[in-house]
């Protein structure tokens, strides 16, 4: 299933959710040619923002991706507050709602390393290219080596 970015961004922005676009979609924003199948966001870990996140995505039936149907998973503020990182399937496509990322921390730590982008009529905070490289390096997964190489090539191409 593809991600409906226009509706994801509209839901989050209209719901005043504080979030940062990270991961493969952020890489595409910076010009990556690699295919990613989901959208990763880091949401701010405050009670108020968790409530906004729950309200914004609630209409799109978020459920744990890959989990068998019938698990006692409730998409509510208490569940999100007790957890941290959630890999979700939604009616708008696969979405990872992350409280923290390896090598980057949470929303407040990442905020200084973002830029504002505009797409589909929304203004969105996106992790900047240098920090994206840093967190991909920190993740240290073999599958990220090619992705990091491409991001560093993008940095070269953009005069970084």
């Amino acid at each position: 299933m593809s991600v409906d970015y226009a509706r994801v961004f509209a839901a989050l922005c209209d719901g005043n959710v504080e979030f940062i676009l990270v991961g493969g979609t952020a890489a595409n924003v910076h010009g990556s040619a690699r295919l990613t199948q989901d959208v990763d966001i880091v949401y701010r870990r405050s009670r108020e923002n968790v409530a906004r996140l729950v309200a914004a995505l609630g209409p799109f039936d978020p459920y744990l991706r890959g989990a068998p149907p019938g698990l006692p998973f409730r998409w509510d503020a208490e569940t999100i507050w007790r957890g941290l990182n959630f890999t979700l399937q939604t009616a708008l496509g696969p979405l990872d709602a992350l409280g923290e990322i390896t090598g980057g921390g949470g929303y407040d730590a990442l905020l200084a390393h973002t830029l504002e982008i505009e797409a589909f009529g929304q203004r969105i905070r996106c992790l900047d290219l240098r920090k994206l490289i840093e967190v991909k390096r920190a993740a240290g997964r073999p599958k990220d080596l090619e992705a990091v190489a491409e991001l560093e090539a993008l940095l070269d191409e953009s005069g970084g």
Partner: protein
Amino acid sequence: MERDPVIEEYKKHVDRTLLRENLKLTVEQRLRHLMELQKLSEELRLAGRKAR
């Protein structure tokens, strides 16, 4: 940024022509292109499943 010799080796194989084309696009155009690729990938996956 510190150079990593492993990453430097991988960088030799990056197709920069694709990156240069992407950099000519707006952010929204890049995301629309990504959505088209996701749909194509899904169609191919389903076609492969039917063929088995």
